[in-house]
């Protein structure tokens, strides 16, 4: 993230005599963001969760977390067809962006996954099997992160 601190914070850890402990702590936080673990959420504090889709590829799931993993259903998705399902998530606002990343699962060279709807309290994922001949019979494992957005 493009966060910077005033010059007085430069090299803070090596200037303990010049700065206060809270300044040093803030320096370390900003360093973690910009040069450390990068953008994202911390594991182990309840930010994330995992859910599995039951019954079919259109069955909704509920996961009220700002990041997590959805294990989709593996019902056959024929060639050149698509299926959509709603992810109920009360952290999502209608102006937000939901980023998804497919970890793996689909039959080779078949489905791609897209966010095709956003609403207050939910988003929609569509699996589109773009292969002309092969059905997708795999369990997709989908990562997601909610990014808060704004129009003002």
């Amino acid at each position: 993230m493009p966060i910077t601190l005033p010059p007085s914070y430069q090299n803070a850890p090596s200037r303990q005599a010049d700065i206060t402990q809270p300044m040093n702590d803030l320096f370390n936080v900003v360093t973690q963001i910009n040069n450390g673990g990068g953008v994202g959420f911390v594991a182990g504090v309840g930010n994330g969760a995992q859910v599995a889709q039951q019954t079919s590829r259109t069955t909704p799931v509920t996961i009220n977390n700002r990041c997590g993993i959805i294990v989709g259903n593996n019902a056959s998705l024929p060639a050149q067809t698509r299926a959509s399902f709603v992810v109920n998530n009360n952290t999502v606002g209608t102006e937000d962006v939901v980023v998804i990343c497919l970890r793996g699962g689909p039959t080779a060279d078949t489905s791609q996954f897209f966010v095709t709807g956003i609403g207050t309290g939910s988003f929609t994922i569509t699996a589109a099997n773009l292969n002309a001949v092969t059905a997708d019979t795999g369990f997709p494992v989908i990562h997601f992160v909610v990014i808060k957005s704004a129009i003002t």
Partner: protein
Amino acid sequence: MPVTLRAAYNNATSRLADVTQDMLDLYNVVQQLNGTTGTGLGYVTGQGVGGAVTQITSRSTGVTLSKLTGTITGINTSLAANAQAEFVVTNTLVAITDTVNISVVSGPTAATSIFTVSGVTNGSFTIRISNVSTTTADTGAPIINFTVIKGANT
């Protein structure tokens, strides 16, 4: 953000006798980013960081919105089955090393178009609309949210 504070900050809000106001402020900032009751990643509304724009004329008409986040309302001219269209979003805040994320809120005719970011460069990014239906034209006006994530290659 994957940021953590040292142990002295644990439960700072319930230990006001032990922590300074600066520590409390920093604790609260980190909680907003990471905490289970925080707002998470992204941008604050009402601070001018976001904007909205509407596409006119055609699906390939460029739009200009120089914000780090916002909403683009696309035009609803017919996009034939198996057809594609691209438009440029001119945005002075975008650099060639950035990542632009988009989500479609609503709009496309059911089971037709998908939207991807197909280009990023200094001052603009490109959105591609691919109607992957083999039979149905897309005549919907898409509403697309976006966020710019700053990146670097050094």
